[in-house]
């Protein structure tokens, strides 16, 4: 396991930003972290990187607690720019060269070009998107083994958002392990093989994106008359949620949708269908119906 977060808890005053969070990410995997604002994504990153001290829990990178040597091969792009206002992109790159033995000058030049950045412009004269781009150039120029990216595509246009995904894909194909957060679910559906959904400081759903899509389904049945009693289904652990309205029964199924569909058929409905869910449906289902009115920021 490249990254292991075990039972992480972090409180700010009486408020728990993260409470009992567990997450494991395999080497070479890209894990996308989804969650409403305030669900604990950034706090988790800060704890993982040692910027803030957790109240409890264990954080391991490559099986070991964070140690200075780990920073040699780790890149972090924070949500808000951590660049010096008065320095140019070229000066930031130079600082990176002096700080990291793994720094790759040719790669840094290539990345500056990919993002069409003027190396001689000072940070304060760059747009928010350009600042993010500089941070990404620095992050990928050291060819890191571990990348932690907090909303790496925010402020970027669709073309550069695609570039960021390609950079992550390229790095993972070369063995890097990546943890990133995003409000853009399609980015997670593309770049990530692993998704973790956070709600109120906990991981509420976690798994391989494709496996979640195989498992999570809606079994929908239409009856000629009112839906009959469905007590058996209501208590089935495979059923996440049951909706009944008039002649329609909808079961949100965690797994085994075919078996649930057969069970529903025994109630002699007029028709039964198994409907696929995309990651957005799964995400909205996992963060709960009462959270649907919350502002989700940039969700498409």
């Amino acid at each position, binding site marked *: 396991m490249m990254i292991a977060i075990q039972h992480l808890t972090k409180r700010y005053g009486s408020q728990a930003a993260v409470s009992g969070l567990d997450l494991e990410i395999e080497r070479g995997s890209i894990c996308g972290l989804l969650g409403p604002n305030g669900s604990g994504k950034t706090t988790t990153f800060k704890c993982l990187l040692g910027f803030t001290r957790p109240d409890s829990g264990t954080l391991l990178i490559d099986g070991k607690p964070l140690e200075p040597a780990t920073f040699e091969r780790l890149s972090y792009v924070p949500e808000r720019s951590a660049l010096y206002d008065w320095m140019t992109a070229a000066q930031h790159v130079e600082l990176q060269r002096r700080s990291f033995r793994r720094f790759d000058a040719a790669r840094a030049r290539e990345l500056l070009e990919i993002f069409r950045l003027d190396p001689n412009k000072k940070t304060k004269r760059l747009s928010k998107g350009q600042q993010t781009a500089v941070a990404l150039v620095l992050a990928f120029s050291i060819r890191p083994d571990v990348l932690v990216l907090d909303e790496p595509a925010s402020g970027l246009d669709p073309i550069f958002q695609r570039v960021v995904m*390609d950079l992550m*894909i390229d790095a993972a194909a070369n063995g890097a392990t990546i943890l990133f957060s995003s409000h853009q679910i399609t980015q997670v559906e593309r770049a990530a093989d692993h998704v973790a959904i956070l709600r109120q400081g906990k991981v509420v759903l976690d798994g391989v994106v494709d496996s979640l*899509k195989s498992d999570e389904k809606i079994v929908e049945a239409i009856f000629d008359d009112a839906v009959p009693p469905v007590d058996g289904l209501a208590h089935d652990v495979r059923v996440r949620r049951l909706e009944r309205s008039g002649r329609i029964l909808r079961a949100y199924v965690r797994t085994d949708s075919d078996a649930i569909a057969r069970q529903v058929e025994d109630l002699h409905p007029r028709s039964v269908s198994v409907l696929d869910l995309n990651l957005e449906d799964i995400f909205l289902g996992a963060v709960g119906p009462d959270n649907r009115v919350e502002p989700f920021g940039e969700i498409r």
Partner: protein
Amino acid sequence: MTPVFTVDPRSGVPLYLQLIEQVKRAVALGTLIPGEQLPTVKALALDLTINPNTVARVYRELERDGVIETSPGRGSFVRPNGEPGARRTADDVAERSFAEAVREARALGLQRPDVEALIGRLLDRWYPLADEEPKT
């Protein structure tokens, strides 16, 4: 030249299933021919902008299904097993479409004899017997 694969990440159908389906289809249609080399995992992942582990899983499953073979250091190739292999792949692709249609018919409440009659009509249209004119 490698055929163009397209995947829809927003779909509820897992990406690896979408891609397996497309490669099998390309083999069944002859767009990919036996012995032809497939792109590397990394190249195809970057081409489609999807996760490399997902592409690796596709190649593993295609190898298990006998559609491709991978030799370490050389790459992945469509298996040169000629007609029978391509036939089986075509069967696979067609079966998935039929399964989808039959499921839909069942969800719509059609009974078995209805479905049989429906398929009979379609067969008459697309596979007319030798002494019949094709119907339109």
